[in-house]
């Protein structure tokens, strides 16, 4: 059951300060409203995975591993590979992250990442059929939060995309209905590089890439995913407040612009 989250009362003073700064177009870490924190992308860090990446946005650290294994297709797409995303809010990443089965925040996160990739058709699933109707490749995208300092959605999606863009798939043959894996590898076929851009609404101001203090102070969150062709491919609002329609329209405009910058960063890091 979804429940109103707690916001510690100790944080109220800091929140008030952040809201006050926001009303003047300022931020607690000195950034301009439309600035991201520094983005650092490392790939190929898990040799046993088909692909992997660690993305740091400021102090936020997310590591993503991609494993590709043979599996069964969905009945309604018998000739397509399967994409599956799982997010783990590991308890070392934040003092409030609890152990146990995935909670709504990690489920929402994994579903947003999944949606960005799926709706932009980022992975070319049509090329991942092995034995049509029977056997396809399943692409497991596992998100591991390592250090949570805000904006896990963007960090996770950038890491997932970077991991996919550097993923390798073993070549194979099908002999007598058995899959024979060969030694040489090819890149995972990709169609698109969707970039989500996340806004926080603090007071009446929209800001990009909220850090964790800003997330505590924000009333609402909006993520806009933009694909290669500058189309919107996914959106998600979160939080206890709302947006005026004009705020949403302008956020989409901003996201289209901002996504180009970040896509460039990722393409360079994964070349």
């Amino acid at each position, binding site marked *: *059951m*979804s*429940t*109103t989250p*707690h916001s510690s*009362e100790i944080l109220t003073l800091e929140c008030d300060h952040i809201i006050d700064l926001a009303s003047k177009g300022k931020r607690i870490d000195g950034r301009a409203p439309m600035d991201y924190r520094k983005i650092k992308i490392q790939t190929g860090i898990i040799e046993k995975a088909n692909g992997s990446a660690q993305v740091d946005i400021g102090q936020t650290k997310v590591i993503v591993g991609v494993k590709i294994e043979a599996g069964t297709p969905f*009945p309604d797409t018998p000739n397509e590979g399967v994409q599956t995303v799982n997010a783990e809010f590991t308890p070392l990443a934040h003092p409030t992250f609890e152990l146990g089965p*995935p909670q*709504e925040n990690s*489920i*929402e996160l*994994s*579903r947003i990442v999944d*949606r960005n990739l799926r*709706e*932009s058709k980022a992975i070319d699933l049509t090329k991942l059929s092995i034995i049509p109707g029977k056997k396809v490749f399943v692409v497991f995208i596992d998100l591991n939060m390592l250090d949570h300092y805000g904006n896990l959605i963007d960090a996770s999606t950038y890491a997932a995309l970077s991991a996919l863009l550097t993923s390798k798939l073993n070549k194979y043959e099908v002999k007598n209905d058995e899959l024979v894996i060969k030694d040489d590898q090819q890149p995972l076929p990709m169609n698109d590089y969707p970039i989500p851009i996340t806004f926080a609404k603090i007071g009446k101001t929209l800001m990009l890439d909220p850090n964790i203090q800003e997330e505590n102070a924000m009333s609402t969150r*909006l993520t806009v*995913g933009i*694909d290669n*062709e*500058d*189309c*919107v*491919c*996914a*959106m*998600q*609002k*979160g*939080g*206890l*407040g*709302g*947006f*005026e*329609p004009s705020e*949403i*329209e302008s956020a*989409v*405009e901003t996201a*289209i612009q901002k996504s180009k910058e970040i896509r460039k960063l990722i393409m360079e890091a994964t070349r």
Partner: protein
Amino acid sequence: MYKLVKPDPSKNLINDKGLRSDGRRPDELRSIKLQVGVLDNADGSAYIEQGKNKIIAGVYGPREIHPKHLIISDRAAIRCRYRMAPFSTDERKHPAPSRREVEISKVIREALEPSVLSEYYPRTVIDIFIEALQCDGGTRCASIVAASLALADAGIPLKELVSSCSVGKVKGHVIVDLYDLEDKYGEADLPIALMPNHNLVTLIQMDGKLSKEEFDKAFNMALEGCRKIRNLQNDALKRKYKLESDTENSKDSKEEVK
């Protein structure tokens, strides 16, 4: 699973005259039936039929909260569960809660929460339970419409009712209030929720592919849909109160007869 291979249903979603497969115009909502106060145990309840969607929402609270660590000292906590009945979908849904239901429960809560004056009831909980008895596209929107009425029916103080409507793109056309087939075979789905008087969008999600121009067009069509549905919500609430006051009046008159 054994399934009959059917011809591609996306072919006929929009015909030559620009009409949809169920005969609607692109900007036409499905027929909507709203009923407030349908359950006796729940403090408030409402029922919506929107096309084949059939959804019931019940509200309990403000009431005591367990476990204690969920208490919020300066406002009521709001809990929300959206559940699809196993028989609500084309293929039976397993009774265990799916990840999809967990996410929808969250976005519905966050769509309704801005409308609730929860600071009036600190340290309590308001529970919103939604049972989707039949699902045919746009159930999160229909759920919000019913749940907001159920909150009002429970006497929870609200800034205003929350309305909700989805838009999407099918065969290149922007259309409102998608039903299941349009949702499944369309190119985009954009559900939103709106507090019309406050001009506040409290839910927005998107799946698919929309250019900026298409997005703007679709978004405004959704806002318009919300406003229409909001009128229906107002009417439903009035019918309930009229009914109650009629009953009360007739009681009064009875008593006077004595």
